């Protein structure tokens, strides 16, 4: 499974979107556009990404732009895995 699909799987599970997130494209907006993505959910997504992919998010790694779109979130995860 590629990184985008794994990221979307995590988003879908945490937000309980019942598969809706799996059809998101890279330019699909997230923060401010998906109502289920509140601050608690943002942390839930970070939490599950850390555990699934095995990386550790440092304080200065992320800001609001990380969660702007599916593409920005996938790019962030890809960067952590390099």
């Amino acid at each position, binding site marked *: *499974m590629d990184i985008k699909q794994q990221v979307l*799987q995590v988003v879908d*599970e*945490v*937000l*309980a979107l019942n598969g809706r997130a799996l059809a998101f494209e890279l330019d699909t907006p997230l*923060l*401010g556009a998906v109502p*289920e993505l509140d*601050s*608690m*959910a*943002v*942390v*839930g997504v*970070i*939490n*599950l990404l*850390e*555990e*699934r*992919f*095995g990386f*550790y*998010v440092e*304080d*200065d*790694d*992320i*800001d*609001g732009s*990380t*969660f702007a779109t599916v593409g920005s979130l996938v790019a962030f995860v890809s960067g952590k895995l390099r």
Partner: protein
Amino acid sequence: MTDILREAFFLPGDHAPGRFALLRRPAGEVRGAFLYIHPFAEEMNRSRRMMATAAEAFAHAGWAVLQIDLTGCGDSGGSSADAGWRRWLDDVSAGYAWLREHLDLTPHLWGLRAGCLLAESWLRQTDSAASALYWQPVLSGRQHLSQFLMLKAAGAMAGEGSAKTIMGPLRERLAGGEAVDIAGYTVSAELARGLEEASLENAARPHGQTVVVEAVSGERNLTPASADARARWLEAGAAVIWEVVGGSPFWLTQEITLAPAMTSRTLALIGAWDQ
């Protein structure tokens, strides 16, 4: 399947009315007992239903389960400002002693998420030979604390703020011995330090068996962090079984979800824990 009895009561504690406890036990013979230790903050709330159904299933299978609410976590006395790592270890001691005294057997510990860290800290500190059941354990207390502090940063991130501008001052206040307020919880510096120092990344307990069960949706592989930890535990000679089953991450989903395979697989794995 045997009938079960349920009993709710307060164990004596420093904060009135004491430590809330809920006991489920088979109506007939008790084959063993677990003291259940809940997760930290929102993960405790989100996992309530799953853990209630799991405890019911354990009781139907002959196990007594005592669920205690740690000090300052809602049902026990005290506010979240009264919560502390050492106090929570005392809560575990109180629940453990009650089970041993009233059921006349050696109880096992059952933790979920950060509850596993607390259980492991307690076992290491008391040098107990009790066995441990860990569900979806938080492996790194340091990482868990960061994730919790991130809750405050996540609110700011919806604007233009970065996580660092929020997290930096929070960490400084905790390091200076001050409490911080996050998402409706007051976290003392002592609690933060205790959590931060707790870890399951390495085996450091000489006695007892450990069963770890994790749930993932999709491919049933251990996560990289869990696979590493499992390898280190085995290398250290620990008596550990570490398995993964299919299931929803019920401890963090926005809606209430369940992972029934965790219960059924666990009951099979602990079948030999009778005493």
